[in-house]
């Protein structure tokens, strides 16, 4: 009897919840025009926590009062998985934000976006160097609104205390030497001269950009020097060993902000969080940016980087409005909106640089300004349909080299043989 009553109770509760759940179901995304207003749907990640989208969308809506933007919020953690699934299902979101070039290569080779050569043609190519990054076999499928590149973040106070000159124009050898001088303490109190993050781009990307080597070539001996340097620093104890950093999911931001590392080579995307944390008081260090260390001391600053951009879905319903948005985001107005939050826009100009350095908390010294304007920003991985697979192989071998499971030479040889045997070299 009690059993029956429990079942009836459970059934009623469930029925009520089903009804509540169904009632809470919102209607599906309806993009389109109603009473002259166009609604543009744009896929973004973590809308609430990524202020650049709001800044860009607000600026655009102000300049175009007849268009409303509806962000499609997707978690940053698995953004690509969801976009792939959505597009497979025939989703009609107008604009897709392209996180990085590997994703872009996928969208481009599957022809999931519209050809936007017409927009690209009208943009000033000299002011937007990242525009050419999206050229896939002569066609642009996306337009960049932001371009990040690698610089060297450094802790000014640590340099002063150790009596080391500021890292104005280092070579990699000087970088390793400085790291040695800046490493202090031991055990739980150890402070590292540098922190090299666990991504394979921290070794392979820098080498590719600075030596001219290409991950698509199937030949990887140009990585050797960079690996030797990195492993040397790991052995000397001037950087946190890769195995620990990887297994503990160490955060480069934490290492830098807590004063655990004096130098951190990282992308310019670190600037905005540092500024934000300084405002809230979490980040108390006196920091600056310097150009990425170079192979030779010949004055030219070459660094690696990549764009973030927007592409128009092939099944989009509001193509005209979408094209307007792309042009806006890549142009000066979009750049102004994005730079106001500390994001490095794809559009370069003296006015933008001035605005950027006018941000509260931004280091004002000459070194930082030099770092902000590198001579060359090369892609660490060119766009290709095989980019993702090659990237996986290179990353797997990177892990083996950095944990000491394979020597650098063996690792490089294995990279070459695997890429070749899987037929990935075009």
């Amino acid at each position, binding site marked *: 009897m009690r059993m029956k009553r429990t079942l009836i109770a459970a059934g009623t509760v469930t029925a009520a919840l089903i009804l509540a759940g169904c009632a809470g179901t919102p209607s599906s995304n309806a993009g389109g025009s109603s009473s002259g207003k166009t609604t543009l749907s744009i896929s973004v990640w973590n809308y609430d926590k990524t202020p650049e989208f709001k800044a860009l969308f607000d600026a655009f809506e102000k300049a175009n009062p007849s268009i409303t933007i509806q962000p499609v919020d997707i978690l940053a953690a698995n953004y*690509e*998985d969801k976009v*792939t*699934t959505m*597009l*497979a299902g025939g989703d009609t979101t107008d604009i897709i934000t392209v996180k990085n070039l590997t994703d872009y290569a*996928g969208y481009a*080779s*599957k*022809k*999931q976006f519209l050809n936007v050569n017409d927009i690209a043609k009208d943009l000033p190519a000299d002011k937007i160097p990242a525009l050419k990054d999206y050229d896939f076999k002569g066609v642009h499928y996306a337009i960049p609104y932001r371009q990040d590149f690698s610089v060297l973040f450094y802790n000014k106070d640590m340099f002063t205390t150790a009596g080391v000159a500021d890292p104005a124009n280092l070579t990699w050898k000087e970088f390793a030497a400085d790291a040695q001088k800046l490493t202090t303490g031991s055990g739980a109190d150890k402070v590292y001269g540098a922190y090299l993050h666990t991504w394979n781009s921290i070794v392979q990307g820098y080498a590719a950009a600075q030596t001219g080597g290409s991950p698509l070539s199937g030949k990887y001996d140009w990585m050797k020097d960079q690996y030797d340097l990195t492993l040397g620093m790991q052995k000397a104890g001037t950087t946190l060993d890769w*195995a*620990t950093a*990887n*297994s*503990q*999911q160490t955060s480069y931001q934490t290492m830098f902000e807590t004063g655990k590392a004096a130098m951190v080579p990282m992308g310019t995307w670190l600037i905005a969080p540092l500024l934000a944390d300084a405002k809230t008081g979490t980040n108390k260090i006196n920091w600056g940016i310097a150009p990425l260390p170079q192979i030779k001391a010949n004055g030219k600053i070459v660094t690696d980087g990549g764009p973030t951009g927007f592409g128009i879905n092939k099944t989009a319903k509001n193509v005209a409005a979408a094209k307007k948005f792309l042009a806006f985001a890549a142009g000066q107005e979009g750049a102004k909106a994005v730079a106001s939050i500390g994001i490095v826009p794809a559009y370069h100009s003296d006015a933008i640089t001035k605005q950027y350095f006018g941000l509260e908390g931004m280091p004002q010294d000459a070194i930082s300004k030099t770092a902000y304007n590198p001579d060359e920003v090369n892609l660490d991985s060119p766009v290709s349909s095989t980019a*993702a*697979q090659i990237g*996986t192989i290179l990353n*797997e*071998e990177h*892990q*083996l080299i950095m*944990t*000491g*499971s*394979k020597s650098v030479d063996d690792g490089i040889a294995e990279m070459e043989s*695997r890429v070749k*045997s*899987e037929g990935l070299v075009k």
Partner: protein
Amino acid sequence: MTTIAERRNAAQHDSPGQPGAASNRPGRSKARALRRRRILVGWSFILPNFLGFALFTLVPVIAAFVLAFMHWDAYNAPTWAGIDNFTRLIGDDSFHVALANTCLYALGHVPLTLAIALGLALLLNQKLRGIAFFRVAIFFPYITSLVAVAIVWNMLFNPTTGPVNQFLHLIGIADAPGWTASTTWALPAVIITSVWRDMGYYMVLFLAGLQAIPHEYYEAAEVDGAGRWQKFWNVTLPSLRPTTFLVLVLLSVSSFKVFDLIFVMTQGGPGRATLVLSQLIYQDGIINGQFGYSSAISLVLFVIVLIVTVFQFKLQQRRER
């Protein structure tokens, strides 16, 4: 003892128990009507669950298996591939690595988890003050955030500063394993962590199974003079057979398709030391856009698990005879 054995066998045998009077009655039509009735009744019970299952799970699974014979980038129209994907599988080094890792993982994970979960269930199926607290505690690993599990276990396994190796040094093992930093020891490290995580889950299943053993079986055994070990061996273990079979099959199946824990803990590394089939399917399908190929891998995985499960089924049926 024999009475208990007979009862046990009668209880576990899947006989429908023909009503004695009816089967003696003559007439083929009566037997056929009975058979038809049984089919109808059987299907009426299964239908609610089966309909939902068939529509929402079986159909996509079959679609995925059909895709194994096609090339598909999950967007444009698929093109026929015949057995191209399978010939590629045979030559794919990463597939061989993933297959070996998955089988090794299953070989380690299944018996260890089974034994420990059973042991824990027996341990915690007693009246002791506060035992409920311990039962909840054993379940904690299963509900703790995977990120926390990965970070803490990686810390425990750290080759230089982790407590595990420090303990090993203490007891005289100088050349301690590199655990998640080494290609040979990463898989064992992951197996240990996943056994730790799953033991509470399967303990719950064993606890439920233990409740089904009538007290009088133990009493009868005691009357026959059985000690604790004999009671376990002759009463508990045989009576637990349906539950053990359940746990064994579920464990095997979930071991072959393991993904989350390994992915969060080592991302398949170092290198491909802990690359398993599910991760390969995810990589090739969703990341590399080669959905036909990843479906072929899924089909192979399914066939392997089917063979293992059928084998376990046959073993179980033979034991019951």
